[in-house]
């Protein structure tokens, strides 16, 4: 039990860390092909990271510990989340502690540390990016919490593995109005949290549109590599969370090695498909104006709230 469980957790984290740049590469490749460009290949983000890691570490004069710790904290919190969320197996040594609130708090910790780093540089862009990021985060965190609460009511627990294994045994829960509303709300929240279109454009360096990029403009070398890796891991983990909650089929509920191996392959496939769909959709979307973003997020918050009320009141406790 513990042996396989520990192996499953290790495999999950390794797969997320190693696969996140590949996912980013896949998404860029899909976009490039749909826009009629050749693209840099799926392995390009890994090559970029390798190049950045070899460079000399430089920090701007006057920055304090917040600036130096933030990249490490971002990657570390995301790695812990990758270990907690039942991406491949619900029977892991951590499954008792894999609470929804812990996961959201860890994600928020990464966001806040990066925002503090943006403020620490003392540049106009850093502060602007941090303030925008906090505006978005203030609406995204409650939305993620609420939409997963909608699913946790039928399961009777906020423990993520319990929710996921409950959904595997009773697929009817996901097809209910609460499940559909929660899916829509969580999908919007994931887009905002991962800094993708239509909330934030990850490939821009234009001051009017940057949110995430504005905070990390001052990073260089290995620190920049960590920030990039952290952002890619966040996207992977959030897409994985979406996939485990709403398409939980194939996730191992027992401690058999074959089931875990199959679940890891399925997880990679699900996230790759989600990423490719997202990249394809991004080709046709424009970024929302910053003032319209709270509107979108308030809408998704409302959807999540409706999901909670629907699952609490309609199905009769």
């Amino acid at each position: 039990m513990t042996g396989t469980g520990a192996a499953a957790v290790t495999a999950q984290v390794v797969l997320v860390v190693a696969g996140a740049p590949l996912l980013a590469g896949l998404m860029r490749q899909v976009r490039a092909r749909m826009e009629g460009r050749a693209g840099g290949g799926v392995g390009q983000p890994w090559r970029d990271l390798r190049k950045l890691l070899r460079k000399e570490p430089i920090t701007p004069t006057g920055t304090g510990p917040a600036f130096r710790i933030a990249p490490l904290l971002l990657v570390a919190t995301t790695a812990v989340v990758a270990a907690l969320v039942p991406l491949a197996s619900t029977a892991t040594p951590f499954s008792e502690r894999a609470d929804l609130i812990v996961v959201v708090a860890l994600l928020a910790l990464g966001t806040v540390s990066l925002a503090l780093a943006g403020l620490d540089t003392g540049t106009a862009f850093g502060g602007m990016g941090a303030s925008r990021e906090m505006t978005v985060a203030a609406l995204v965190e409650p939305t993620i919490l609420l939409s997963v609460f909608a699913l946790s009511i039928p399961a009777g627990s906020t423990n993520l593995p319990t929710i996921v294994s409950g959904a595997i045994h009773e697929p009817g829960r996901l097809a209910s109005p609460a499940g559909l509303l929660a899916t829509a709300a969580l999908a919007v929240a994931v887009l905002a949290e991962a800094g993708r279109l239509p909330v934030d454009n990850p490939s821009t360096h234009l001051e009017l549109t940057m949110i995430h990029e504005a905070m990390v403009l001052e990073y260089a070398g290995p620190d920049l590599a960590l920030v990039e890796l952290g952002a890619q891991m966040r996207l992977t983990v959030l897409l994985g969370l979406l996939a485990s909650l709403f398409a939980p089929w194939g996730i191992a509920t027992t401690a058999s090695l074959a089931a875990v191996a199959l679940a890891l392959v399925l997880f990679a496939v699900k996230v790759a498909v989600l990423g490719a769909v997202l990249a394809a959709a991004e080709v046709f979307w424009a970024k929302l104006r910053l003032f319209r973003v709270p509107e979108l997020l308030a809408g998704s918050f409302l959807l999540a709230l409706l999901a909670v009320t629907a699952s609490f009141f309609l199905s009769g406790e």
Partner: protein
Amino acid sequence: MSDSTYTQLLDLACGAFLLAAVVVLWRRDLASIVRVFAFQGLALMAIATLLGLHEHRWDLLAVAAGIGVLRAGVLPFLMRRALAASGETRETQPLVNVAASLLTAAALTLLAYAVSRPLVELDPSPATRALPVGLAVVLIGFFILVTRRRALSQVVGFLLLDNGITAVAFLAASGVPLIVELGVSFDVLLAVLVLHILTTRMRAAFGRTDIDDLRELRD
């Protein structure tokens, strides 16, 4: 139809009904508001049909068909004509901005659940449990009526209010007698026609249908 599929389908229809009201609040594009309103009419028709099938009352099916024709066909058609004549495409400036009104809708939904709690406890069945949905749509309709400026979105608010009332009637008491339903439907149709004329006259007088222009009464 088994009980559990009936409950699931009814919940689904009620969810779609409430969702349509929320989307009306969300969108600024008047044409898509009309489309969403038509979709809500379909959801209301589905609720009535499901209740009729479950209780084996064939007159309810006739009422459902009537509702479908009126609310998903005739009224959206009339609104679309008014829209085409007015040449306005967007609700430019609601009195309360969209993000705040969405959050208000969330609060209104919770309020609807809170106040209908005693009603539901009288006789808990799948239909009465969905009663708060109808009430929430009534409240959201009121809210749209109060905060929107364009005449057409006010008409939609009024019709949402009426949809909500009809839904409450269906969910609480499996609908009102056929003759009352007919009377109400004709009333609504008449109100929309009158508002249509009013909109046209407003446009002739002011060039647009912003309700804020109606500050003084004249004969």
